[in-house]
């Protein structure tokens, strides 16, 4: 809709060549239909001429829209046949970067079009898992709103024109040794790009390179420098840690190591098949806003942002760390959180770790390093390497803006990134752009920054370009293209090539040249082939650096202590965090991510100011009430959402929403909170106020009720309870639960289950609620998005959802009668819910036309073309996992040709009026069956991996043959922690859950009065 104006803008201008005309959206659509709509009315001369032009152009454009392979040879992954076999996908190793850091991926390609991203199991960091961003990157590639053409002042131009204008600038700058030339990039780890930048700085000594990431990592970098006197980066090793103390660090979902840390963390919690209770780690979290890491904590202490640092100081005093001085703990922190935690840390010295989040100031990071050093954790649970992302000296965005205003910048090339939207508010980057004579923006979208620059060059998507990128441990991956660039895109290598006056060249050559230089020409082809094929360049991980504490940090700590006293006042803290789905806003036009229910709130399509129940009571606010949030001179209005466990007197704002030039998906969705975010308050600000406006907005939330109503849907207990009764843990037998010998009774005859019988076990101890499974499923199964209105109506289509429940043991409520202790600091449980594939499926018996039936292999199957849409199956499904196409949700997929490429050809695109649901990825089962039959062998355990299972960073999902007692899933299901959701209904679900086991320190229990046993 909003894009229509963009398109109109573009088409209004005269065009000089067919090529240019071809860039307009309407024209492209016309060409891509076999017969343009106007073709039937060509009686008058003008129309006939148009028609001939169109037909001529469509021949010329044939290459534009086809699924062509890249020109250079790319190397398929292990499953590579000699030739492409129609119907058989190939997998190519590559990497998807976020914030400069790689997630190693295998991309599934069907006849030259990438459709699905899987984690690369050989990648040392993510080891086969992925996150929502990597999963959603295929939609990003095919986003119809992506920038497609070079623009000059908003008018269609071309690459030659751009280079023609840029080169004289470069010549001038070369004469001035580069003075006046500035490059602004996002965080870069790419060896090739860094090499190019370095050469650029060599040939233009006065030119400067600036880096800006809204979700920056400056605090931890500065903290490490403060502590050790050198630029190092901390790497935590949770497999070695028995006790983890996270200080405002959301390490499970934030930071470049999130996937590795999730895996290492979960590996130490999982109860392996048949093992019974084992050596489980313990996670203590002190945090200023609810995070998934806090939800996974065994004990959690919510504090206001400044109190978090204060707490760590007091803890350091308790631990006897020298140089901290005297520091009182924040008011209201239970004594045990100091004494007991300190004792535990000391007891587990060398086997524990203190981690500090990016939101905390450098001195708190330094303090944590000092504590880790004191506890002997350095070199064990935390090691150090050189920073993987190289940051130029004094190359922040503030310095750049100062220079721009001072008139020192003549040429500014913004290489990816959207500073007009996301730069600190006080800098007024858009205003400063006017001071620069030549501005160019290279990006995936014609975004806010593109609109402020003279030139815009469309950037290649990582799935369609050559490049390289490192991951958090330094391991490099060659990014190989899965498809020729869809439009006239140019890669960062090419842009830097032009700046270097080396000509655009091909990025393929640039990347190869760099690595040839590194590895030498000897055996380079072999090396190259191996590296590209594996998705990992061998021996590129960074070496560990030995560090030792310097004294500097204590001074910084002393200074910081002074202004923390004001936090008790009546003012409110604002906490800024990247949006859990949209990150810093760069994914705002990704409909999958927009519709992804955010943790805790389950909000989709937009953000809300998250507040504590106490604050809501104080101001008489309810979910959706609009408040005015004022901070200094700035203020904005947005709806609130009450989150149990949110620290009092503070408001969490997610940035990345409220884009104005994101595209037709992201424009105007949510509220932009960047205007309140300034350089010195990037993570939190103090002294804000909120005023209810009396207005209300309906927020599309995918879950409206977060209490279990005593139904024991998530069974949970403590490790102690489990260890005491490993065979029959008491929490596995909640009141009202019937223990059946075998299956519950049924009127239906028992069926003989022979051969492969598929089943799933989901470990609720491991699940962190990261949502990766949801997007993976959406990508694999062609699941449509429905938009905010439909979500508000309760019509979201996700086949697997992550239910969230707040619990404080004995909680019963009815209609808002929720005990306070639940609201202050609840336990949070996540429960992924796919189809249960019930052996006695209630949906099957009620379908009048047998559109949902049971397969021989125990799958509850939907036959879409038989479904008439009575929706009785959905009504009768106790798990409400069935999803109905109430409207024509796949219209866009049909109408926008570029989205045709996105669809998984193995999965039917469903039409209006049809029921759908999780199939256990039946297409993958079929593929494995065919393969095994070709090879004359049974399907091996672990051969079928569902999309959700494959994506899961915590490996919480296990899938396999439940008829084989030796399969992993059978062993899990045989364990004492296994239970079926609502098994008392007699449905005999094939998907079962392993109860959530937590390992809390009893002394730290937030509510001393709450007794987990009282309900039993």
């Amino acid at each position: 809709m909003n894009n229509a104006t963009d398109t109109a803008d573009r088409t209004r201008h005269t065009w000089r060549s067919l090529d240019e005309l071809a860039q307009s959206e309407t024209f492209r659509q016309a060409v891509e239909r076999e017969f343009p709509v106007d073709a039937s009315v060509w009686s008058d001369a003008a129309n006939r001429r148009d028609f001939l032009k169109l037909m001529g152009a469509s021949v010329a454009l044939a290459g534009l829209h086809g699924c062509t392979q890249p020109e250079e040879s790319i190397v398929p992954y292990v499953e590579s046949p000699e030739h492409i076999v129609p119907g058989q996908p190939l997998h190519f190793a590559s990497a998807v970067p976020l914030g400069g850091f790689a997630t190693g991926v295998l991309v599934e390609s069907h006849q030259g079009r990438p459709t699905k991203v899987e984690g690369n199991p050989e990648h040392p960091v993510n080891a086969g898992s992925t996150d929502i961003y990597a999963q959603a990157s295929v939609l990003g590639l095919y986003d119809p709103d992506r920038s497609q053409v070079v623009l000059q002042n908003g008018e269609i131009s071309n690459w030659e024109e751009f280079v023609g204008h840029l080169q004289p600038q470069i010549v001038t700058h070369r004469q001035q040794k580069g003075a006046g030339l500035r490059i602004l990039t996002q965080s870069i780890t790419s060896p090739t790009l860094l090499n190019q930048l370095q050469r650029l700085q060599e040939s233009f000594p006065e030119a400067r390179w600036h880096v800006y990431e809204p979700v920056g990592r400056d605090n931890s970098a500065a903290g490490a420098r403060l502590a050790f006197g050198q630029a190092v980066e901390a790497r935590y090793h949770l497999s070695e840690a028995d006790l983890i103390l996270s200080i405002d660090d959301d390490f499970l979902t934030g930071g470049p190591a999130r996937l590795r840390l999730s895996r290492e963390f979960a590996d130490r919690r999982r109860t392996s098949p048949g093992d019974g209770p084992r050596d489980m780690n313990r996670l203590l979290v002190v945090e200023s806003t609810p995070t998934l890491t806090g939800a996974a904590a065994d004990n959690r202490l919510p504090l206001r942002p400044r109190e978090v640092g204060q707490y760590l100081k007091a803890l350091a005093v308790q631990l006897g760390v020298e140089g901290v001085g005297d520091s009182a703990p924040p008011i209201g922190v239970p004594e045990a959180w100091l004494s007991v935690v300190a004792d535990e840390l000391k007891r587990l010295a060398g086997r524990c770790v203190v981690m500090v989040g990016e939101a905390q100031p450098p001195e708190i990071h330094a303090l944590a390093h000092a504590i880790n050093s004191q506890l002997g954790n350095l070199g064990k649970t935390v090691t150090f390497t050189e920073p993987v992302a190289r940051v130029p000296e004094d190359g922040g965005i503030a310095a750049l803006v100062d220079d721009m205003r001072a008139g020192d910048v003549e040429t500014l090339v913004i290489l990816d990134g959207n500073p007009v939207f996301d730069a600190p508010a006080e800098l007024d980057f858009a205003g400063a752009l006017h001071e620069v004579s030549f501005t160019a923006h290279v990006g995936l979208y014609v975004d806010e920054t593109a609109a402020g620059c003279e030139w815009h060059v469309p950037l290649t998507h990582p799935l369609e370009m050559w490049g390289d990128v490192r991951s958090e441990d330094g391991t490099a991956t060659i990014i190989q293209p899965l498809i020729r660039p869809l439009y006239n895109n140019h890669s960062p290598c090419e842009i830097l090539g032009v700046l270097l006056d080396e000509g655009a060249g091909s990025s393929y050559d640039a990347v190869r040249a760099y690595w040839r230089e590194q590895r030498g020409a000897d055996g380079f082809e072999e090396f190259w082939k191996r590296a590209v094929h594996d998705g990992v360049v061998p021996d590129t991980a960074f070496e560990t650096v030995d560090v030792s504490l310097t004294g500097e940090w204590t001074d910084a700590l002393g200074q910081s202590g002074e202004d923390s006293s004001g936090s008790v006042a009546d003012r409110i803290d604002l906490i800024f965090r990247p949006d859990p789905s949209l990150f810093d806003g760069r994914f705002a036009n990704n409909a999958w991510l927009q519709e992804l229910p955010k943790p805790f709130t389950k909000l989709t399509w937009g953000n809300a100011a998250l507040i504590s129940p106490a604050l809501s009571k104080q101001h008489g606010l309810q979910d959706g009430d609009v408040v005015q949030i004022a901070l200094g001179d700035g203020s904005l209005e947005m709806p609130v959402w009450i989150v149990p466990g949110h620290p009092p007197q503070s408001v969490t704002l997610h940035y990345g929403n409220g884009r104005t030039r994101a595209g037709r998906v992201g424009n105007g969705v949510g509220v932009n909170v960047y205007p309140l975010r300034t350089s010195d308050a990037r993570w939190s600000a103090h002294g804000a106020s909120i005023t209810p406006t009396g207005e209300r907005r309906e927020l599309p939330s995918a879950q409206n009720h977060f209490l279990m109503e005593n139904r024991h849907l998530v069974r949970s207990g403590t490790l102690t309870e489990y260890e005491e009764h490993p065979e029959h843990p008491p929490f596995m037998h909640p009141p009202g639960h019937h223990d059946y010998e075998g299956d519950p009774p049924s009127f239906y005859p028992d069926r003989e289950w022979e051969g492969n019988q598929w089943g799933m076990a989901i470990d609720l101890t491991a699940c962190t609620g990261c949502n990766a499974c949801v997007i993976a499923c959406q990508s694999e199964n062609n699941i449509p998005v429905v938009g905010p209105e439909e979500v508000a109506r309760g019509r979201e289509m996700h086949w697997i959802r992550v239910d969230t429940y707040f619990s404080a043991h004995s909680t019963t409520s009815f209609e808002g009668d929720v005990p306070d202790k639940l609201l202050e600091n609840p336990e949070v449980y996540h429960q992924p819910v796919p189809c249960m594939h019930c052996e006695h499926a209630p949906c099957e018996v009620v379908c009048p036309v047998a559109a949902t039936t049971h397969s021989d292999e125990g799958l509850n199957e939907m036959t879409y073309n038989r479904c008439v849409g009575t929706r009785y199956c959905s009504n009768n499904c106790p798990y409400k996992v069935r999803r109905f196409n109430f409207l024509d949700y796949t219209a866009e997929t049909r109408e926008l040709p570029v989205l045709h490429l996105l669809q998984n050809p193995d999965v039917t695109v469903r039409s209006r009026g049809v029921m759908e649901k999780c199939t256990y990825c039946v297409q993958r089962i079929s593929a494995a069956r065919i393969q095994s039959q070709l090879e004359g062998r049974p399907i091996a355990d672990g051969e079928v991996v569902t999309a959700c299972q494959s994506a899961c960073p915590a490996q919480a999902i296990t899938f396999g043959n439940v008829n084989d007692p030796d399969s992993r899933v059978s062993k899990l299901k045989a364990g004492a922690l296994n239970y079926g959701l609502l098994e008392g209904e007699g449905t005999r679900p094939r998907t079962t859950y392993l109860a959530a086991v937590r390992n809390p320190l009893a002394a730290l229990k937030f509510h001393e009065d709450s007794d987990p046993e009282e309900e039993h």
Partner: protein
Amino acid sequence: MTDTHVQSDPSTEPRQTVRSVSQQISAIVLTEGPPRGWWAGFLVSFLLVMLLLVSVGWLFAKGVGIWGINQPVGWGFAIVNFVWWIGIGHAGTLISAILLLFRQEWRTSINRFAEAMTLFAVACAGLFPLLHMGRPQFFFWFIPYPSTTGMWPQFRSPLIWDFFAVGTYATVSLMFWYVGLIPDLATLRDRSRTGRGRIIYGFLAMGWRGSARHWKRYQSAYLLLAGLATPLVISVHTIVSYDFAISILPGWHATVFPPYFVAGAIYSGFAMVLTLSIPLRAVYRLQNFVTDRHLDNMAKVMLASGLVVAYGYLMEHFLAWYGGHQLEEFMLLNRMFGPYAWSYWALIGCNILIPQLLWFKSVRARPLPLFFIAIVINIGMWLERYVIVVTSLHRDFLPSSWGMYEPTFWDWSTYLGTIGLFAALLFLFIRLLPMISIFEMRELVHEHEHSGGASAEAGTS
């Protein structure tokens, strides 16, 4: 024939003769122009039919998503209205068939339009299952026919039973009604003054001459159909209740549903007969046919069936408590005190509290309060289905999936549209066919004339 007074007959007013009966009833169709009220009423209902057409057109263009249904409330107004209309469609056959078999002769003056009402209500009801399907173009997959796909319906599904039950009921009701009309169609043929009328009524009368043989065949056919229709009255709503009772959803999964649904259907059916007959007899001055005695009898039936319905509610609550099933308990608490509590308490008020006024003869004897109570019961019975469908679904097993249901404009327009369709059909019926069985009234008059005498000779007059 001479004018003979009929005295002490409960079902007709005195001073009716065979001739006056034929005259008065057929005149409404043949001679009198429709009164202004007819035109006004028909216009309104015709506009509502147009609204229905627009709603259905939009529905077919966009899909059932134009309604308020969602996850978890997969069934909304469509099913509520379906059950409501089917319930209303019970009274006709009940009055005609069962009361015929029980030889309740007072039924004679109301059975014709009660049957018509049944047919039209079933027609309205029948629309909804079709409209509520996601892909209505494949409705015929409900029919077991030898198709190339080799697929049959899934006979375990109560929706299939429902399809047959409603289909059978509609067919038998139509035949019953039509067979009952034949002698009267012949009367209209004979009394019609226009050639077109004679041809059309003559065609429909299928050559009825009123011979003794005709009467004999007619009576056995009618009796057979009555016998066939009687179990259907019970079976249709029993099977409609299975649509819910077969499921595992708390609030639907209840063994009390079949009897309780049948009682509810009779309740609402009689309420609708009263709702229609009270204004009709006022407008067409038919107080001498539809007497106060009729109203009184129908009110008593309503009271009795209403008490059975109340018993059903009571049992639902008792079993939820006695069964000790947590979800059942929750479901009822949620009905009474949850977000849809208004609908529950309105239902109790409409279906249980207000109808208790029917215990008083003074209330039963007066048409206006009776009319009001009948309307209240109609609303109450609609609310009952709303409560069953919506409040059971909106908070079921997993709290994570709980949601709310809000009907949209199109929900309302489709519902009002079918009310318009029902009314329009009734107006046409009143205009084109005798709304009271002429020959049966004649028979009644005749019988009383020659009480105890030989069977009345009746025929065309």
